């Protein structure tokens, strides 16, 4: 095991208050209209939404508080069933990047309709081994293999576990 944390003293940002009613909520008015899955919804899934919250494996802060994920980092195209999440590791050599990416992917896999293709990337220029991480995160077989590894699965589950706050 590596001793000590990789980034011991991260900058913690405030959680942004989200105003939900701004969005067009057609549910009450028209039974047949369709709410397409949008950026904010995916972001909510990842961050603030439900009981569970993705956490940084190293810190008790959520990824939003560390600005690893922001609302703008999510791109969604509902018609093409495609979602791309670009995240920014806290430090350039963060070895946790793959774990964070894996968490994001697992969370989305569990929460989005199966038709979606999920694309996870590290923000350009924010990680030392950017290409390698991107490749690892988007290789179907490698992800499947990673999820076979009980230690990794446990870690991912830990990240996705509820934070009782």
């Amino acid at each position: 095991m590596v001793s000590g944390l990789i980034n011991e003293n991260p900058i913690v940002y405030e959680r942004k208050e989200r105003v939900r009613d701004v969005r067009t909520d057609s549910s009450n008015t028209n039974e047949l209209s369709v709410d397409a899955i949008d950026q904010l919804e995916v972001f909510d899934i990842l961050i603030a939404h439900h009981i569970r919250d993705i956490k940084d494996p190293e810190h008790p802060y959520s990824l939003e508080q560390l600005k690893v994920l922001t609302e703008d980092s999510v791109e969604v195209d509902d018609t093409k069933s495609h979602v791309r999440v670009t995240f920014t590791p806290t430090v350039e050599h963060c070895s946790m990047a793959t774990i964070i990416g894996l968490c994001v992917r697992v969370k989305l896999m569990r929460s989005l309709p199966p038709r979606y293709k999920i694309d996870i990337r590290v923000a350009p220029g924010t990680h030392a081994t950017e290409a390698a991480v991107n490749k690892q995160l988007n290789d179907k077989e490698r992800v499947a293999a990673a999820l076979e590894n009980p230690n990794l699965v446990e870690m991912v589950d830990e990240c996705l576990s509820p934070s009782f706050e």
Partner: protein
Amino acid sequence: MAAPSQLTEHLETFVDVTRSPTHHADSLKAIVASLEKGVLSINQLVVEMDMYLTTTDDVVRARGILLLAEILNHLKSKPLDNAVVHSLIGFFTAKLAEWRSVRGALAGCLALIKRKDVAGVVTATDAEAVAKSMAQYVQVQSLALHDRKVCFELLECLLEQYPEAMINLGDLIVYATSEAIDGEKDPPCLMVAFHTVELLARLFPSPSGPVASMASDLFELISCYFPLHYTHTKGDEASIPREDLSRGLSLAISSTPFFEPYAIPLLLEKLSSSLPVAKVDSLKCLKDCVMKYGVNRMKKHYEDIWSAIKDALYSSTGTDMSFGLESLTSTGFEMDEIHREAVNLLQTLVKQDVSFVGLIVDDTRVNMVFDTISRYLRYEEMPDTSKLEVLVVSQILSVSARASVESCNMIFETFFFRLMNTLGIVEKTSTGDLVHKENSTVSTRLYHGGLHLCIELLTATRDIISSSEECSSTPGCAQQSWCSIVNRFSVSLIEAFTSAVQSSSDDCSADAYLGVKGLLAMGMFWGGSSPVSRSEFEKILTTLTSLITAKSAKTVKWELALKALVCMGSFIDQYHESEKALSYMGIVVETLVSLVCSNHCSLPYPMILEATSEVCSTSPKYVEKMVQGFEEAFCSSFSDFYVNGNPKSIENCPQLLECVTNKLLPRVTEIDGLGKMLVHFAISMWNQIESSVVFSNDVTGRDFVEAAMKTMRQIVGVALVDSQNSIIQKAYNVISSSTLPAMKSIPLTFAALEGLQRDLSTRDELILSLFASVIIGASPKASIPDVKSLIKLFLVSFLKGYIPAAQALGSMVNKLGTGSGGTNISNNCSLEEACDIIFHESFASGNDISSDDSSKTKCGSETVLAKICLGFDGSLDLQTRAITGLAWIGKGLLMRGDGRVNEIALVLMECLKSTNSSGNALHPSAMKHAADAFLILMSDSGECLNRKFHAVIRPLYKQRFFSITVPILESLIVNSQTPLSRRMLHVALAHVISNVPVTVVLDNTKKLLPLILEGLSVLSVDSVDKETLFSLLLVLSGTLTDIKGQQSVSDNAHRIIECLVKLTSYPHLMVVRETGIQCLATLLELPHGRIYPFRREVLQAVTKALDDPKRRVREEAIKCREACCTAHHYTFTVKDVPYKKLCSTKKILTVNGQFPGQTLKAYKGDTIYVNVRNRASENITMHWHGVEQPRNPWSDGPEYITQCPIRPGSDFLYKVIFSIEDTTVWWHAHSSWTRATVHGLIFVYPRPPKSLPFPKADHEVPLILGEWWKKDVRKVVKLFTRTGGDPNVSDALTINGHPGFLYPCSKSDTFELKVEKTKTYRIRMVNAAMNLILFFAIAKHNLAVVAADGHYTKPLNATYITISPGQTLDLLLHADQNPKRTYYMAARAYHSNPVINFNNSTTIGILRYTSSKCTKTSSSSKRYPKLPYYNDTSAAFSFFTNITSLYSGQAPVKISRRIISTVSINLLMCPNNSCEGPNGSRLAASMNNISFVTPSHVDILKAYYYHIKGVYGTRFPEFPPLVFNFTAEDQPLFLQTPRLATEVKMIKYGEALEIVLQGTSLVGGGIDHPMHLHGFSFYVVGVGFGNYNVSEDPSNYNLEDPPYRNTVTVPINGWVAIRFIADNPGVWFMHCHFDRHLSWGMNVVFIVKNGRGRNQQILPPPPDLPPCYYNSIV
């Protein structure tokens, strides 16, 4: 108390400390009672108690004194002799010196000192003695909590009641008190302590007194608590809230001026801390101090305090101001607690000493603001710092101005001119004088900051007026200088504000806000000496009114102006300013009311109405004006529309009426006379209709009619009975003059009815509708003329399709004859008569309509309403109208609890059948109306028949109707013939169920749930029923969460889930899908086993819902999916819990307090996590018996084999990986003998879509056979390991923990299985006994074995079963016997060796049929099962050998290695033959003559994994080291002695092994051995008696379908052969499952090495593996 002996007895009880507290309390009560009654006198008591009070036994004496004290405490109000009190107090005072009895002494003193206002009070001298003695002897802080509290209370009492005596004591009492307080930490004690300090300060006010001299010490004692900080949990805090204690402390600190030199610096210091609580507390305390210490003492601190206040204000003020409506009358920004306290302190300071204002006046920061505000013109331009400055300064100034008149004057004198100057209202002339600037160019110089300050100051003055007026009748404010200043500038100020409002554009709300607020401030001065003259006031009003009328759209400015006007209106009304009221009326009210009437205005009509109603609601006078205006407006537009035919004029009427209903009606109770005005309004409505005889316009104006009806209903509803009567009379006059009475002519022919579609004239329709509204609103006491003909009128008109008529009829029926007193509705008609008219009035059938059914309906025959409903006569339209009408009448009857409603319900239900009684098919539309009729009957109607309209409502009427109709509907549904009728019946039922209170549904869940579910599936077909479906679904969701419904929900789980899964894709209504998913999520929380089999279906449905078009559904789906996936974690808390069995209670080790433990459930292939938390006092490990745990020996569990034990207080997370297990396995503890009580079953289910290879049973029954010792099992183990002999045999056998009635005290402790005839039960059984193989059978019932040890077997029918410890069996029980009899199930031992002691008792369980009606069964009808005899070896083994695997050809045919091992009992020599085994030796057991020694410091797995040497050897022999006739009757003694060693057998990965286990007859002739192997299941290929023969026996093996097990029984003096592939790397234990043999060493460990492949290696160790404590280099 009659006899002294009784008294003595009570005394004895009390002084005996071994008795329970309730005994003590009882005896105390008895003694007190007799004292109160006077049976016993105090003197007698004391004499009687003499011995207890003076004995040398410390404990008894202490108790005796305490008793006396307690008694006195209870007699507080009983008069006592002064002498007695004197001697008692003397006694207690003396006892204070004695620390053992101090508790009683203190309590006694307190009880006596507390005496007040009754005969027998402690004298001052005695009190002084008490205080002295206390000061001398009692060390308060060394006492217990309760005694300390008593001490403080005693001090408090003394100080409060004997001030003179205490003053005499002087220094002494102060010393004593401070000593007592020093170091106190308990909040309740501190509370009292703080009060004592306060009292002390009050006693010694003199500067030369003891308090003054000791002020510094005393202050130090109490100041250390400041600021109060609780470290306790919240639970403790509840006793004394922090606020109270903090208040007490603050009072103590401020109690005496002598504290001043110490307190103020401390408080100022704390104020500068960063802790908000400290700041708030300091500010509060400073305020107290300012008030108490006096001006002189405080003066020197002013500057410090002022700067502290400033800091607090600046740091706690936010810069965001709101310009909303709500802040118009408040400060406009939020204050936090610090801010509020700072403001309070400032105000107190100024109030105490006006000279404080001087500081403010001279403050540079304050002055600077005035220089800088002119820099920024508009609010938006100001930087945050500047905003903050303005806000804080305005606060400071307005607060200080508010404090007193003088300060107000000062502030105004200093600052107002400057302000005016900045605003440009005055200018400095060259000579330095300030002069008014003529024709000022105010508009160009609007400074936001200046305006704000100005307004704040003006509002402050207003408060000054009200406070000064309230407290004294000081001569007006006109004389005050501030007033004259305001007066001088009022004109220009108003101008400035006006221009601010008018110049502001809509995007700049700040200016408009300030302008309006300023005007409001100016308009709110009151009293004759107001600085604002009437003309100026009127100017303000005009400005605001013009703001309102000018606008054509709703803007912030408009709303602000309206709000300001409303404020002023209510202000005027509050202070009775008659002059201003006149102006208000003239300028505001009349303008607005005229706008209402004119309706030629640019302002939209709703806005006019809103403004008018808001403004006018401020005073009754205005309301009157408004109602008049409304009336006028209504009349003019009504006649304009109907008479002149102007279609536009009616448009505003509905809005007008709506305004009346929504704004005015709710305020009838508040405003006097409004009711009368409204009645007048209603009557003038009728007048208008009456006078407009001919309607030129034939357009009905639907909106208008509806609004008019609503208004009419509500006016009548709120009116008094007299007024109601007059309205009714008026209405009746109108109706009788119309053409309507012609319709009363009944009998009417059908032909006529048919012809009369909507044939009423517009006027008649309006009259009819309004009249119906009047009737609906009328109270039961109102008198209605000519009821009978009205009934007929309504009857005919609803048959024509006028629903209001039906509602009115329902309302009439509801209220008839219920009014009390002379005048009521029934004075000319009773309910009976009315019903008679309604139900039995005949309608003549015309000749022409009976064509379809001429045989039944003869020409000219008569028919009644019910028949029309059933469609015998008349058209479909008529039928549906009749049904709806009937429903309303029915509702009227139902609510008053009249029985006739049942007939109506029956008629309606008749309509729901597919055919009526005469065989005619009913039309779908009629059926639909009939179904909806139930909604009318059950739901609350807003339009009529509710409390607002005086309906008679009998309590629980819905429940009554529910219980009558549901059974009928249910049977109708069962017998329904067509799908349509079925659907309609379900609709009706859904209406009934969803409208009845939920509690009723919950009480009947069992019955209703199937109906609801059926209803849901029927209703989900058609989108028409979506609303009904939803309300029914809501009922279902209510039952899911309620505790009452839970049992039946659990029983019906599969049906509910099926139904809900369907609803998750219901296309027609989003909320249905959403609620469906929510319900599913709720269901997942039900007991796991019920839901587990359906998890897959749920998951599929929810996953599909992730793609739902609606966001809300998707959100629910995500939540539900997460709930699905988290069901894999369990927590096992191991702890000691007392259980009572066999007449005695003992503490046993349990998991989560349950014995036997909970059942775990999983799908085949699942992985579950079990967190074992050891909260017991001994080590524990957990084993998952029969779970192979591929590659994961870490979680297997045997103590010191695969892990070190979990120590008390620590946790370990077991990861249990299910792989090939199919049916039932189990879990148990695996350290020492702890598994005796720590065990439970694991149910494994086939993973869908795979299913069971045998018929699915209706129910599953867990059945655990166990053994029970009355002694602590730990002691049993200790004893036999120490002595070396046999362990004690158990005292009972148990079924699911119940011994059964054959054992003592166990009559009620008998397991009972309730079965229903013809159902099948799957018994999932384990033998969890420690040392016994068991026979088990159920009387008269065969058991079909379908699985053993977690794997399917070929079905085997058996009359009894044999089960060894550790084995599991799945048995199918078919309940096919006579249900009137009771059957017993029984289990007892199979034991082949008579030499060895064993438990030969029998445990009994009961099998009872629930369907049997006779609950009592005679003893003759009870059946006991037949069990084989104890030593019937052939019976036992014929059962074992009959079990075969379900699958063929699975066992390894070729083997790579054969290991033969003996399993035998041995003896070890003891020194001097001192052991208790045979011949004084120690019993042992061995495999291949090696008695296994369990490592004691590190486990074998860890030693293997981390290569720790010296823990085990690897030389376990593959063949018995000594070959002899293993089963001979006599064995040479030397064979008995084993070798003690820890030897393991290393196995290569993937080897095909055969292990032969050979029993021996050593020591006592042999016994059977149930051998269990961890980590594998094996095929039992051969079993035989005698010695195993390598060359012959393998040829007789069953290699085709051998049983696949994990525990096999080696027969007495026989052998078994097992085979398996060693494909599970790890350390695996093999041992005899008789725990005594295990303890003696009949064990071996196999280490299967890693293979080459990735999947052939041991998994890495878990991080939280329990640590071992060993000294080793590694």
